[in-house]
């Protein structure tokens, strides 16, 4: 077994390979790590590149693929790519779920029943509180989209990002849990995590600090290189953060994977799971 496969099997490096196909987004959330918005540099990964990395990931011992951004569903080719990725490894794709209407929703039909989960952001059961962070009308779009996806046999997870989960009003969180259950998403598919103080959140003085000591090592591929966490390739004042950069080389994938194991894979499994946001 290679050093990379061993580190993954022992939980010293995350079992999922993350990829950033793009950085642009139709929203402009107040805590966005990547300063995403409609007009930002897109930093695109081509679908062929993503598929090649996924094949390499499986050969190296990774057991899943994660797609994040930016809003990946702004890319017209994403549904087709997800169907192909799902033939290689189980997929989770992060989305704001505001684009799942009309032709974009229809394009998701073939994904039903495949090992694909769409993880959707929903921060509050109160429309105003949710929309304050994520933009006007977001709540209504999300609660409309979730049942549409489930109806098509597509797995849905709900991710809630809170300024401080520990001190958050439990009654409000209960109302949110009632809401996701009523939409058809069980508790096992609901994650609550803190705002990470990087990107736009750092500029706004929000969230908890998150560097190499706080985050689980999870190999993450972007157009700018390979990073040690999906929370690594963040953008602040238009500049890419490099504190969690592993290598500029992303192909062959064994190069950044090996470097990540050298840099962080010596830590005991779980030692860095403090933030619980894998």
């Amino acid at each position, binding site marked *: 077994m290679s050093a990379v496969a061993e580190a993954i099997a022992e939980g010293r490096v995350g079992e999922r390979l993350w990829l950033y196909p793009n950085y642009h987004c139709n929203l402009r959330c107040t805590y966005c790590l990547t300063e995403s918005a409609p007009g930002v540099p897109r930093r695109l990964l081509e679908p062929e590149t993503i598929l090649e990395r996924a094949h390499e990931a499986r050969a190296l011992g990774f057991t899943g693929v994660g797609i994040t951004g930016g809003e990946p569903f702004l890319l017209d080719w994403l549904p087709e790519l997800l169907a192909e990725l799902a033939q290689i490894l189980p997929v989770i794709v992060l989305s704001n779920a505001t684009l799942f209407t009309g032709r974009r929703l229809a394009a998701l039909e073939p994904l039903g029943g495949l090992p694909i989960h769409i993880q959707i952001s929903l921060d509050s059961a109160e429309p105003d509180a949710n929309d304050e962070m994520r933009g006007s009308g977001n709540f209504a779009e999300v609660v409309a989209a979730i049942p549409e996806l489930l109806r098509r046999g597509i797995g849905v997870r709900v991710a809630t990002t809170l300024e401080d989960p520990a001190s958050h009003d439990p009654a409000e969180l209960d109302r949110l849990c009632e809401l996701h259950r009523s939409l058809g998403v069980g508790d096992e598919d609901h994650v609550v995590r803190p705002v990470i103080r990087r990107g736009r959140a750092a500029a706004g003085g929000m969230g908890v600090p998150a560097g190499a000591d706080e985050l689980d090592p999870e190999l993450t591929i972007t157009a700018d290189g390979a990073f040690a966490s999906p929370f690594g390739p963040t953008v602040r004042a238009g500049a890419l953060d*490099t*504190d*969690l950069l*592993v290598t*500029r080389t992303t192909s062959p994938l064994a190069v950044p994977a090996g470097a990540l194991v050298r840099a962080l894979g010596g830590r005991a499994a779980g030692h860095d799971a403090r933030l619980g946001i894998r």
Partner: protein
Amino acid sequence: MAGVLVTPVEPAQAPLLARPHYREGGTSPLVSSLAHVPEALEVTMPFIATVLGPSAIAARTKELVILRTSARLECSYCVQTHSSVALDSGLSVAEVRALRGEESLEEAFPAEDERMLLGWVDAVAGTVDPVPAGAGVELREHFSEPEVVELTLLCAATVMLNRYCTALELPASPATLQRLAAEGLL
């Protein structure tokens, strides 16, 4: 501050593999430029440390090669940085000046082994023409085979660094410039 082509990577942004190369209070312009490509930094710095750093060959001898090569390649970063290192390695101000081409090399280096070595450096690094066949034969009178290999690799590695530092317009550190000013070597 690095030159116009590349901004130095600040300590707070140092990538994981680059962090061991960042010392308390800052790092060299060479490291803070290479940190943009951490996997290159990770192998380049140990290579430089092995080839340019302490080894079986005396520090004085190695600095003759490094400073003379850098002067021939007109790399101001390496000339300035290694003028300071050369002083630390026991060379006199007059010898440093001679290696930089500011005073007579013959007068500053009367010993035959050092003159032979400087001639070899000029043959290897002083021109883009091929190194003349047989140019290093006399070296073997004073240096063993492993020493010839090490000194030639040192000269060639210095050429690589000279071209890198000159192309990226890396500036010598303030501490180096202060030292050279005090010695009248700026």
